[in-house]
């Protein structure tokens, strides 16, 4: 449930959605937390009002990463949680993310059931005499850090401490990232760790947004640079040479470290890089690909009892700690990989097969998406195809995926091949076919 503050996202709407959620999960404990957006306080108050009115006990853990809320839902055996964050959207946006008692985001049938309650407008109304209060629970991020250290341990003693630069984008990770890195035993240089609602850079940790981090890594001769998004679920890495290695590689490196220690399968979504397949193959692990979306990945991970999973946008899920995309867990895993292998990020990346990925998007009204996908299915009918989320086609030397966006009227095209030239060719070919189809 997402919108722009001062326009569509009103306190009334937020209260009603929270009433619907409270009605859906029933009168029990609900954990809430928020990112540092300026509108966060207003949204938080509206959410508290809606939840209390349905008889929930609201435990507010304050400003914190989304995965901290997910972790606390399970630790406190709560009936659910509400994360107040619009993750990578610009400052004027905000949103509610609803979390079930298992710590996963509501999805599919559950989300539809809640939406039905919202539309019906018949919310549980607890008598004024039986209403429960609001509890503030400090120290949730300390608990998150402790859970990570308990699972991974501090970094092994090496000749010298790893030097890390962290760019938290003034986001929810600002309050916890530096403490985690110190607890792991790294030397920390932190930038953009003032969670005052300002955005020092676009929130998505894409290579083009990481100039300040790259410069800081070079200036401080750091071993690695980490960049988080506003709600600290996604993580991107800058190498020891100050080069963003691409969000895809976060999951790849995390998986490398996990598979070094544990045997089991890996789950990612359909748009993940083929490097991940190569890493899984190296350990004789199976890689399962799912539809795009965190909850699809986590559900498949539970089915496959996977040891690690995540998404190509920098979301690492390590179920031993948290069934959530968790940038803090990601940092812990990658630093352990560096310490254990004694290699630099550049060396680790060079040691992996090289692929080239390109992404594009085209404006596309939602009613035309079907026609585009049908066209592609016919045009590429002779190649292996995956139709679970748009159309993914495996060509001899490349793959491509075309799918409609869930959030905007655009169509996304992603392709990956072993060389820049090959991927360029495939992308151009697919994009021109899509354009022709849209023009027809």
């Amino acid at each position, binding site marked *: 449930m997402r919108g722009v503050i*001062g326009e569509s996202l009103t306190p009334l709407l937020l*209260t009603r959605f929270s009433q619907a959620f409270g009605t859906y999960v029933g009168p029990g404990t609900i954990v809430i937390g928020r990112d540092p957006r300026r*509108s*966060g306080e207003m949204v938080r108050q*509206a959410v508290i*009002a809606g939840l209390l009115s349905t008889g929930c006990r609201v435990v507010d853990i304050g400003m914190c990463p989304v995965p901290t809320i997910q972790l606390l839902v399970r630790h406190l055996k709560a009936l659910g949680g509400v994360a107040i964050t619009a993750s990578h959207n610009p*400052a004027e946006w905000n949103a509610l993310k609803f979390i079930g008692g298992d710590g996963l985001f509501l999805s599919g049938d559950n989300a539809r059931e809640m939406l039905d309650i919202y539309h019906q407008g018949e919310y549980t109304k607890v008598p004024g*005499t039986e209403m429960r209060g609001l509890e503030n629970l400090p120290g949730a991020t300390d608990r998150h850090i402790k859970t990570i250290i308990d699972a991974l341990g501090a970094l092994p003693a090496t000749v010298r401490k790893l030097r890390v630069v962290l760019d938290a984008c003034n986001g929810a990770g600002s309050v916890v990232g530096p403490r985690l890195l110190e607890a792991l035993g790294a030397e920390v240089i932190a930038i953009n760790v003032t969670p005052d609602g300002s955005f020092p850079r676009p929130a998505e940790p894409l290579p083009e947004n990481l100039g300040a981090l790259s410069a800081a890594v070079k200036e401080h001769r750091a071993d690695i640079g980490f960049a988080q998004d506003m709600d600290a679920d996604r993580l991107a890495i800058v190498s020891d040479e100050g080069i963003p290695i691409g969000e895809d590689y976060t999951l790849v490196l995390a998986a490398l470290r996990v598979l070094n220690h544990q045997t089991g399968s890996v789950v990612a979504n359909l748009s993940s890089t083929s490097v991940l397949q190569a890493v899984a193959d190296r350990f004789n692990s199976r890689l399962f690909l799912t539809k795009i979306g965190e909850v699809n990945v986590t559900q498949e991970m539970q089915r496959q009892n996977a040891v690690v999973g995540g998404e190509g946008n920098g979301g690492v899920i390590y179920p031993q700690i948290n069934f959530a995309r968790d940038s803090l867990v990601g940092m812990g895993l990658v630093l352990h990989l560096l310490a254990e292998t004694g290699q630099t990020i550049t060396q680790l990346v060079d040691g992996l097969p090289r692929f080239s990925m390109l992404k594009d998007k085209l404006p596309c009204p939602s009613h035309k998406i079907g026609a585009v996908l049908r066209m592609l299915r016919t045009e590429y009918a002779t190649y292996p195809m995956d139709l679970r989320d748009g159309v993914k086609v495996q060509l001899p030397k490349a793959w491509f995926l075309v799918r409609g966006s869930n959030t905007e009227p655009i169509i996304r095209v992603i392709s990956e091949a072993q060389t820049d030239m090959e991927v360029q060719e495939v992308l151009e070919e697919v994009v021109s076919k899509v354009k022709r189809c849209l023009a027809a």
Partner: protein
Amino acid sequence: MKPLKIGITGVRGVVGETFTPELAVGFSQAFGTYLNSGRILVCRDTRPSGPMVQASVTAGLLAAGCEVIDLGVCPTTSLQLAVSWLKAEGGIAITAGHNPSQWNALKFVRNDGLYLNSIQAEELLDIFHQGEFTKAASDRMKSSVDKQDAITYHIERLRETFDVELIAAANLKVAVDCCNGACSKLMPQWLRELGCEVLAINDDPDSPFPHRPEPKPETMAQLRAVVKAGQAEIGFAHDADGERVGIVNERGEPLSEELTFALATRIRLAENPGTVVTNVSTTSAIEEIASAYGSNVIRTPVGQAYISESMIEHRAVIGGEGSGGVSVPELHPTHDGAAAVALILQGLASSRKPVSELVGELPQLTMLKHNVAVEPNRLYSVLQNFRLAVEDEQLTIDVTDGIKVVLPHGWIHVRASNTESMIRIIAESRDPMNAQNLLNWVRDRLTK
């Protein structure tokens, strides 16, 4: 029909039925819009629904671009005084005063610390119904809520207003029942500052109301026992937001709530004669007391907003209502339990007489009150029919608020409640039998 009243005293209803978070959010957005954003104070009493309502109010105000200052749990008067102290544009007090625990309400305070008057309340209601609220963009929205201690400031102001040394010199022993309400912190502290030995009961704001939060003789059993057992000179009972006061005398006998304002008026006029403001349904003992001190009485419709504005207009020396609310203008022209208590203790200290004796000197009248529940959709037609019946009998009526008729041996007053869906009937006469006859006279005509 479920009770919900939107009117001059604010928005009031039963939580879990009509008083929803959506309603509180909407009215707060409307209020923030009405005051052109700006700084708004918020306080609440101790009802279990308080945190829910406060979150709704804060969300609505922030969304309308207001700066919200949270005064926490405190009497409504503390908020009203803090409005000018903190240079705020207004405030919202979250309290249903004397209503039972399942109720809650929003009371809207403007930048002079008074409640919205009836015209302003209409304007607010129009904005609410139009639903065109100011929507602050995220970069204009306040990102946090500050807290302030309005109770300490309230006590400072009380100390400047009353003769603390006089009261302290009397070494009074005072019992107080805070009903676990909003004055649980302020009242015992204020009494101690007045040098009293304090026997406080029900002063835990985290506990539920021990009885209906309306200071009337039938809710004062505990206080009576404490006064007797502790041999206190006087006992005070308060409602949930510390506005009204009920009294138990030194013998442990509860006084009618009508006597609080009558006693306060007598004490005030003895020191400082001048205009008295009260509503049309308050005891006519007020006129008798006033005339003894060469003072006059102004009668207003029922509701604090009317009393406050009339007090300012007529430069009154005291205002109040028969429900136990007393306003001392040097503090603020609005009802304050702490001010009423100080005034009465000042009277005890300066006269050196026991409460029973002071009360014995007041005019002895019998007032009977009776409430008739009426469905909201019939309320005003029932009243209109009553008015027609009275007019048929060629009687002179006062329609300041409802219908008041002065009859040979007393008077009667019939009006719609501001806060609940009922008709309130009051009859007063010097003779108890006559009072009962007057009440029956009204009932006969109402049922027609």
